[in-house]
């Protein structure tokens, strides 16, 4: 018996470590829910418009101010319509189609800005941690950027660079580039600090010494030995970055300095609906819920990832 089980273990293939991470991740209920919701909302905004084939910008003034379908339950006189399950706005545009289209832009901005911020943060963190000569300079720079009042500066950037970028890249792409760059270059600092600290600690380890002793050049040292080892803090800060990027984009739209009003984003829909929220509270609640639940889901995923990627917690 013992022999059989032993040999069985012996032939069993070594398991990829990401399966361990996944097993640990699955034990975190909130994180699994978060991942489920994120997948759902991504499908909702990406595949949704294919199934729900309504033009979000189409005006239908005869069909304006339709209440969402559940209002028919409380109030038999409410204007409801199965063709517009979430209702329509004051110009008769379908709210569900708008939420889908807005989600596309909001999520696209969030992901792109997060990738940019993580890329910048990792680059600066690795450079500062690995090359001692750059360390002082880069970290002083990081501290300086951290001391800047970021939200006002972001607002200034939005306002001042909006028109030239719109002229150069077209209205939608120009604002997209502006918002993504703005959020990206104002949120890389935490990642840079974490990565720098980890790289500095890793640099003193034996395997790095061994790699150096066989003459590994700095470039390969970083890509082959250091980056894979700092992947987990980078992933955790990436999830946080996605959450903040989505919130920042909506905040800019909410302050009236984001996308122009014919390009709906969640923040923009919320901003446009605030004036009529007394009569139609659902119009602020749909986009607000979409933002909050997405960010909540991403935060829970980050929480679960942090536990799952920490080998000291894993397996307990």
């Amino acid at each position, binding site marked *: 018996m013992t022999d059989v089980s032993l040999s069985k273990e012996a032939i069993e293939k070594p398991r990829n470590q990401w399966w361990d991470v996944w097993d640990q991740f699955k034990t975190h209920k*909130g994180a699994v829910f978060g991942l489920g919701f994120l997948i759902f909302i991504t499908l909702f905004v990406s595949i949704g418009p294919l199934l729900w084939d309504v033009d979000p910008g189409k005006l239908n003034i005869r069909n304006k101010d339709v209440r969402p379908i559940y209002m028919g339950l409380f109030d038999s006189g409410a204007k409801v319509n199965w063709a517009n399950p979430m209702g329509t706005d004051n110009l008769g545009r379908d709210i569900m189609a708008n939420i889908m289209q807005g989600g596309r832009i909001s999520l696209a901005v969030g992901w792109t800005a997060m990738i940019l911020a993580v890329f910048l943060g990792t680059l600066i963190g690795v450079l500062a941690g690995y090359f001692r000569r750059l360390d002082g300079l880069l970290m002083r720079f990081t*501290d*300086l950027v951290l*001391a*800047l*009042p*970021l*939200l*006002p*500066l972001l*607002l*200034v*950037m939005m*306002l*001042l*660079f909006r*028109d*030239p970028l719109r002229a150069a890249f077209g209205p939608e792409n120009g604002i997209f580039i502006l918002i993504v760059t703005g959020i990206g270059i104002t949120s890389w600092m935490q990642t840079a600090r974490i990565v720098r600290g980890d790289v500095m600690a890793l640099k003193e380890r034996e395997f790095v010494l061994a790699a150096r002793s066989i003459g590994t050049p700095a470039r390969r040292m970083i890509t082959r030995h250091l980056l894979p080892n700092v992947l987990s803090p980078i992933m955790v800060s990436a999830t946080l970055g996605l*959450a903040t990027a989505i*919130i920042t984009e*909506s*905040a800019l739209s*909410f*302050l009236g*300095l984001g996308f122009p009003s014919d390009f709906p984003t969640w*923040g923009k829909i*919320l*901003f446009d609906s*605030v004036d009529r*929220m*007394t009569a139609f*509270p659902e119009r*602020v*609640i749909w986009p*607000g*819920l979409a*933002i*909050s639940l997405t*960010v*909540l889901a991403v*935060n*829970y995923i980050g*929480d679960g990832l942090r536990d799952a990627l920490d080998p000291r917690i894993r397996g307990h």
Partner: protein
Amino acid sequence: MLTYTLRRLLMSIPTLLFIAFVIFMLLELAPGDPMAQMPLTIPPEVKQQMREALGLGEPWYIRFPLWLNQFFIVEPQYWIDNAFGTNFADGAQRIISFQSRSPVFDVIAERLPQTLWVVAMSYVVGVLIALPIGIISAYRQYSVFDQAGTFVSMIGFSVPPFFSGVLLIVIFSVQLKWLPSIYDTTHVVNDWQSFKFQLQQMIMPVMVLALQTTAQVSRYMRASMLDNLGQDYVRTARAKGMSESVVVMKHVLRNSMIPVVTVIALGIPSIFGGAIITEQIFKVNGLGQLLIIALQGSDIPMVMTITFLLAVLIVMMNLIADVLYGILDPRIRYD
């Protein structure tokens, strides 16, 4: 400690100069023109004169030192003159807003009390709520209370103020009609009735801002308490037969407060940032709203001054946090 504080104060001067330079250059490079709103019929030479009247005729390397001079020397002189009736300033040029043509600092002084009331109040309320939540969550780790606290702080992190504020307005102003949705800053408190109204109108903006603070501070408090609860000195205190309340509230709490105090100090600038959005929702005519209006009107001196004041706040709070950390924790030695 004193030398450290002095060194940090000296170090913050180049930092602030650099920040001022960044903000100035950002506004300078930007193509936004304060003359853009003027009628097109104005002849170009008149337009040029108007630009010069606004102080825009000179190149940046002359205007930047001028601005610094106005901000750091002329404006404090005016304060001193106002306070003591002296005449240091001697009619020197102050920083003038493009929009209202009045000194920027006078406008800021008008707006500051409203912002300070709401912001300071919400910060105090947020911290006061957060501390007990953090303490109980750590003491009863993994209990129902702890789980609920974690969930609430997750919500505080995730729900942006422009949604929580709007949601509160929908519930309490629109549906229940308990609270006013607009903050009336002209309201004067002189008797019980007006005090009650003041409380009513402050609850929502304060709670919206406090939710963010609570979420953050309670997490730190919990983590810090958990770190300390497992330490040997706690076991010693219990072994000596001290009551549980003394152990937790005296021994553990005091030590756990050290990192939390610095977090509280560091969070102050960010709550001013949050005030920009909250003031927009509740129509408080405070600094945040002033910044938005100035931005929309290309009022460069106003934007520059407010943004720079926020930067000063951030740098000062960083300094205070570091110094406090050194004072509170005898293990930290900066010298």
